[in-house]
């Protein structure tokens, strides 16, 4: 039978607290055959079903070659995600996926990789950072830029600190509002472009975050000579079916769940500048 929309039972192996509101669920399918067959690409997402409450689309943050578990990093903000935050090891939920078009990793081979994220936009992109780190010889320079509203919102601070000590890796972090002992920039992440060591012709850029931030970042990148075709964005809209049927995720004529969520800048440029589309 065609089971296009049916979730499958999965189990929480571990729930990791990342900040007061952000947590990571480490999951496996209960059916080991299904778990063994499960494949995804960085930038894709799953639909997570919380029993009795409903489904939410969440990007997959773990490494695609890790076949033991797959991870979702989630902010507790709505009805379903607040409930998911209560799950503990051994608890069950439903999973269907993966869905959508992921990051253009084949095109990134041999190039400088620039990751620009805002807020929890770092989650869909951290899988790319991990991917590059584990295959470091296949890529050039790695530039990681992450912005948060408040210094306390930064998750994975230790990872950013560690990445910043590595060769051929530049880490630029900013918070609109700093705090005591905040080691990074206070202001917008886009303020840091002057310091980014961008080689316009060698770079591929992957962005995820608020649309206003991505629009400004794209303009700054274009001004630095980065071509439109080298800029990729992960977009966010309401998604209730994940298979291009329910209509909620549309931007212009694009279905974010199936045409995206990762888009080339040229595909989405004209739509990005219109409010309320």
């Amino acid at each position, binding site marked *: 039978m065609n089971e*296009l929309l*049916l979730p499958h039972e999965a189990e929480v192996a571990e729930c990791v607290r990342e900040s007061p509101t952000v947590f990571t669920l480490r999951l496996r399918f209960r059916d080991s055959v299904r778990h063994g067959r499960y494949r995804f690409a960085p930038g894709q997402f799953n639909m997570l*079903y919380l029993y009795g409450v409903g489904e939410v689309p969440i990007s997959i943050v773990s490494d695609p070659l890790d076949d033991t578990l797959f991870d979702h990093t989630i902010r507790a903000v709505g009805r379903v995600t607040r409930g998911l935050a209560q799950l503990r090891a051994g*608890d069950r939920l439903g999973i269907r996926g993966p869905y959508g078009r992921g990051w253009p990793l084949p095109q990134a081979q041999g190039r400088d990789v620039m990751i620009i994220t805002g807020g929890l936009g770092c989650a869909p992109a951290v899988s790319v950072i991990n991917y590059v780190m584990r295959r470091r010889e296949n890529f050039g320079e790695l530039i990681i830029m992450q912005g948060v509203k408040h210094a306390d919102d930064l998750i994975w601070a230790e990872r950013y600190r560690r990445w910043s000590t590595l060769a051929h890796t530049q880490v630029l972090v900013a918070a609109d509002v700093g705090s005591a002992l905040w080691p990074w920039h206070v202001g917008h992440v886009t303020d840091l472009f002057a310091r980014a060591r961008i080689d316009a012709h060698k770079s591929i850029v992957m962005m995820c975050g608020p649309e206003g931030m991505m629009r400004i970042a794209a303009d700054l990148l274009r001004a630095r000579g980065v071509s439109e075709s080298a800029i990729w964005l992960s977009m966010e809209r309401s998604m*209730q079916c994940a298979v291009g049927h329910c*209509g909620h995720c549309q931007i*212009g*004529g694009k279905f974010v769940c199936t045409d995206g969520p990762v888009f080339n800048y040229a595909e989405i440029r004209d739509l990005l500048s219109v409010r309320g*589309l």
Partner: protein
Amino acid sequence: METGFLPRGRFQELLAVLHRSGYRCLGPQVRDGAIVYAAISVAEDLPRGARDHQAAGHYRIEQTASPRYFGWANGPQALKPLVFAPQEVLWRARRQADGGLELHQEMPPAERLAVIGVRACDLAALALQDRHFLGAAGDDPHYAARRAELFLVAVHCSDPSDVCFCVSTGDGPQASSGFDLALCELDSGFIVESGSDRGAVVAAELKLEAVGADARAAAARQADAARTRQHRSLPGRDLRAVLFANLEHPRWGEVAGRCLACGNCTSVCPTCFCHASVETPALDGGASVHARAWDSCFSQGHSYIHGLTVRSDTRTRYRQWLTHKLGSWHGQFGRSGCVGCGRCISWCPVGIDITEEAAAVCTGAADE
């Protein structure tokens, strides 16, 4: 393919053949002041002499002495509710004693359904819904199950209403494809065409008479009259470029001042496909039902993401509806999402006219 003539007095035989072939028959009936599709078993159930008067924000049925069963344009329903159910259970979850989850897909009951009196615009809309729900993303199993056993008896539109504009969209008033049988209704009876193998089987069982020259001439005159009676039109078939070049047109704000964002237009639109997930847990906590229900891009929740509503006002929601329906459908499905049925005009409580709004944005008619 034209197959013959069925005199008016023998119409019951069509219903009998369909019943014998295992079909439950739905046909037009007048209910609560409007034409709706409901179960019929005898020809007398059909709305003989009914005539619909439609205008912007207006729908009334008049009873006339005409012998005709199909002398009206349409009612609020198209075929949409029969294949894309307004609310439908997709799957059920059950929690076991050890906390485990059992998840089971629920399918609609298999039923052979024949619909009598389908309009050309509704067939065009069904073809579009087929492309959406049986398209590149994979077959929607619930839609596919309902669609597979649908037998469609079209009736060419002889009396378009004042709001019809299917000539402008190229979808009517004559049904040209997508039916099993098509009827042309004359006072004396029906010219029957078959459009599929199973339609031809039913037609053969009817032992139709030869079509006389008078009947053929009357059918041609009637088709011409139905075409020329329509006076509304859209300002072109592909409005994608002009609509997306006018996303900040002042008309969007102006129409938002009249629009109630009630969603009547998206409910009666035969091509609108948006739907929301609805989760209903049982009171004892032991089970939960996951359903989908029609949604509207005019609702507050339609564009909600974690604390933010992308389309926060009626201006952006009306713009979404019109730019999608008449614009981005071309990229998604290769044609406009409007089939010219006029329902959104009649059933709009404030009488907003899609052809007028499209003209205002696309041709600057509002500025003059």
